[in-house]
């Protein structure tokens, strides 16, 4: 297919998300809203062992927000909250165009969202799940 609108990785995560489901073992959930369109996703994490042993998301959104959430969970599962927050920080740096090539490496597939910084109308879609994760983990760590 030559005329696909988004990057292959993004389209694939949107069409076949691995982490779009409920998570019965979740210990924390947190909802995030994209105020520009009203789309809402809820992030579910199992933090019972002090790290993200499992995670999922529920809710609706555009291809960018859905793929971004799915890619993010791929990256985050297995990480400690501190490592996860650091990666979320790098993701923000990528979106604002301040990331170094080495840092970009550590974001793995999330690097496919780098071009979003050229679509200002869609930045909020790409960052929705990451901001939601940051909120969830910050409040988890401050408990």
């Amino acid at each position, binding site marked *: 297919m030559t*005329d*696909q*609108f*988004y990057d292959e990785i993004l*389209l694939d995560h949107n069409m076949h998300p691995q982490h779009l489901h409920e998570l019965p073992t979740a210990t924390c959930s947190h909802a995030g809203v994209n105020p520009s369109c009203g*789309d809402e996703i809820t992030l579910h994490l199992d933090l019972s062992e002090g790290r993200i042993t499992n995670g999922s998301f529920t809710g*609706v959104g555009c291809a*960018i927000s859905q793929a971004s959430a799915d890619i993010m969970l791929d990256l985050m599962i297995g990480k400690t909250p501190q490592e996860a927050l650091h990666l979320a920080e790098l993701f923000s740096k990528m979106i604002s165009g301040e990331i170094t090539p080495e840092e970009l490496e550590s974001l793995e597939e999330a690097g496919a969202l780098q071009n979003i910084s050229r679509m200002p109308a869609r930045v909020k*879609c790409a960052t929705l799940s990451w901001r939601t994760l940051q909120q969830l983990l910050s409040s988890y760590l401050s408990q």
Partner: protein
Amino acid sequence: MNNRNYKQDFPVFSEYPQLVYLDNSATTQKPQTVLNAAEQYYRAENANPLRGLYDLSVKATEVYENARAAVRDFIGAASEREIIFTRNATESLNLIAYSWGRANIREGDEILLLISEHHSNLLPWQILARETGAKLRFLECGADGAYTPAALQNALTPNTRLFAAAQISNIFGRVNPIREFAEICHKNGTLIVCDGAQSIPHIPVNVQELDVDFLAFSGHKMLAPMGIGALYGKEALLDAMPPFLYGGEMIESVTRESATYAELPHKFEAGTVNAGGAAGLHAAIRYLREVGFDEIRRREDALTALAFDGMKQIPHVRMIGADDPAEHHGILTFTIDGVHPHDVAAIFDADGIALRAGHHCAQPLHRHLGIPSTARMSIAFYNDEQDIKAFLSTLKTIRRRMGYD
């Protein structure tokens, strides 16, 4: 279809000859004559209107008041005292809610709205109800977006003080039977507020024929500049209402402790007014009159039917509202199976086609319909068949470009 090229009258289409603009319900483009009128005002007629005693200020006042006379005539009001200039429909609706609402609504009263109302015709009443202890109730529609007079009749109670409804919904494009609604309301002792934001640009509106108590609309959706709108109210109602905003221009005399207020309509126009915007609105009315609502309807109906019929043939495209293009007045809201409306709009944008996606400031309606968000294309008379063809040809490609076979 008459082949006059109306786009020639709109400079934006010389700036962007390829632009396919199908977001007219959000705001229309502006014809040269409107730009000229606003410029002429600031070049040769500008002073603070209603204040000065010198020639230029008299001229500014004349421009401003002539615009008011044009609005009165355009909507068939009885008197210029019934035309209040505001910034937009939102401000007009807030003016009613703050001024009339706080003076008249009490605990236990009911305010009735359509479930499809724009947030601008919902939030002012929500806040009013919360502050006064009144009850907010909604008339619901089916999937075709229709509301019947009988349904209104059944929903009214002896406590219903106010009913607010758009004449044309910005999602369905369907015309509501406002005249019948007004008759039913008045028999019940209920006031009727009509949101004309989407109807004024598309159909002739006459407030005395409709017999509405208030009508709100925005200039920017009817070819005029942003920042000028109007509120029509029956004189006896406006007369009895307290001012909304306080300050200069709206007074008769002021002492240290108190003030008496100016007569209508200036009582409701505190502070320096938007005379340049009013001049632009006047020119927009003149231009719309010149084109004529018969021609506007003929063109918009033909384009709406062309788009509607084309959309119906594309698999996975689902139309919102009536199954008859004649009920849509240029507003076609839709979804595509498996593709989020934001992605739909992004793909149209990539092909140079401007349209809107989201909840269109009507979240309660989307919830009622069980659809989180939609895409909407909206037509004006200056659109042409090429625009519709471009729209349909992109629409056909969307699922494929999102990775479906």
